[in-house]
């Protein structure tokens, strides 16, 4: 059985993980004095995190995968409800990250620790969230969803924007732009 929707989720998780890892490395480099802060770059990275996972990835999981699994597995219900609640808090969490970046931009070096802490909190939360999906939801979905369920879910996922392209290649272009301007060792710029 092929699970194209789960492969797409894996792909999107990898893209998010790479972006968060890049942002973390960038901030660590600034703290160590190896890199200069580039606020436009960091804002673009947060844009990507907001546009792809929060606006495309999570709604797709809620509307198709979780909606179907709700009907098929009682065991999955509390986990789905927990994850959906986290999805609902997504805007708030990304806003906290943006606010911390803005504070850092305005206050200079005094704001770095605050931004670093906000990023650490956001990243830890995303890792925990992705792990819960991959380690708890995926096995339950594979165990309880029928071939017809998967056909419907896969079709919906494939019809949706993906992290590489988005509407008119918007996300792919944003991702490439970030890779091109981010300084080494994060990206190709510098």
């Amino acid at each position, binding site marked *: 059985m092929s699970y194209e929707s789960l*492969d797409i989720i894996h792909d999107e998780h990898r893209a998010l993980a790479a972006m968060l890892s890049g942002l973390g490395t960038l901030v660590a480099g600034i703290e160590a004095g190896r890199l200069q802060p580039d606020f436009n770059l960091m804002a673009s990275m947060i844009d990507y995190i907001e546009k792809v996972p929060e606006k495309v990835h999570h709604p797709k999981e809620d509307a198709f995968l979780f909606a179907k699994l709700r009907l098929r597995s009682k065991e999955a219900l509390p986990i789905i409800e927990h994850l959906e609640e986290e999805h609902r808090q997504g805007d708030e969490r990304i806003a906290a990250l943006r606010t911390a970046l803005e504070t850092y931009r305005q206050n200079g070096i005094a704001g770095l620790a605050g931004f670093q802490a906000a990023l650490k909190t956001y990243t830890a939360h995303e890792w925990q969230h992705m792990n819960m999906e991959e380690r708890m939801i995926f096995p339950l979905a*594979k165990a309880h969803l029928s071939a017809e369920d998967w056909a419907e879910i896969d079709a919906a996922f494939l019809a949706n924007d993906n992290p590489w392209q988005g509407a008119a290649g918007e996300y792919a272009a944003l991702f490439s732009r970030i890779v091109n301007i981010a300084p*080494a060792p*994060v990206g190709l710029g510098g």
Partner: protein
Amino acid sequence: MSNMLLEAKEIHTYYGASHILHGIDFNIREGEGIALMGRNGMGKSTLIKSMLGLVRPRHGRVLVRGDDRSRARTWQIAQQGIAYVPEGRGIFKSLSVRENLLMSARAGVDGRREWTFDRVMETFPRLGERIGNGGWQLSGGEQQMLTIGRALMTNPDLLILDEATEGLAPLIAMEIWRIVKEIRKTGIATVIVDKNHGAVTSICDRAMILVKGQVVFDGSSDETRAQPELIQTHLGV
């Protein structure tokens, strides 16, 4: 088979007294994508080198488009439309980006010239920004892009990528995978050796796992992903 591009039959390769490949069979058809996986030292790169004439197998045969090329030189195999992006990249550091690309430009086996200099520039806009720079001035990610671009300039039917993202930052690695995915869509057959099983199985149709010079799994990428224990056991992740 008429659409078979590259085959290895019962390959045994040694490094001195060390027996590395133990009777491996491998094949790839036109347009197919194969993820070649395994832990370090399991024989993945040796298999590639054995098929390309870079290492001479002691037993077994190598066929390109059905013709026995077991004794062919590497350049003769490359002329059959097989492009190799080696581990470590191997760009010409004293040449500029433009020179690295143009020196490899040639038509494909059937005379195709789909991959032109301009198309490579469109695929890797970053190289356009570095066009006059020497190879030695490029970062690891840019060198990797140049090596892939140089391989495409040969208008290959088969592209072999050995550890294409080794040592690259996650963002750069993702960007390279995105581009390789786009290249795959053009119909070029691809063999990818990489440790990132998630990325390679999402790009390739088929997956092979090598353990101690033997094939322990050969199946679809879907089958591979459906068996996490396979990955856990043989790749240790």
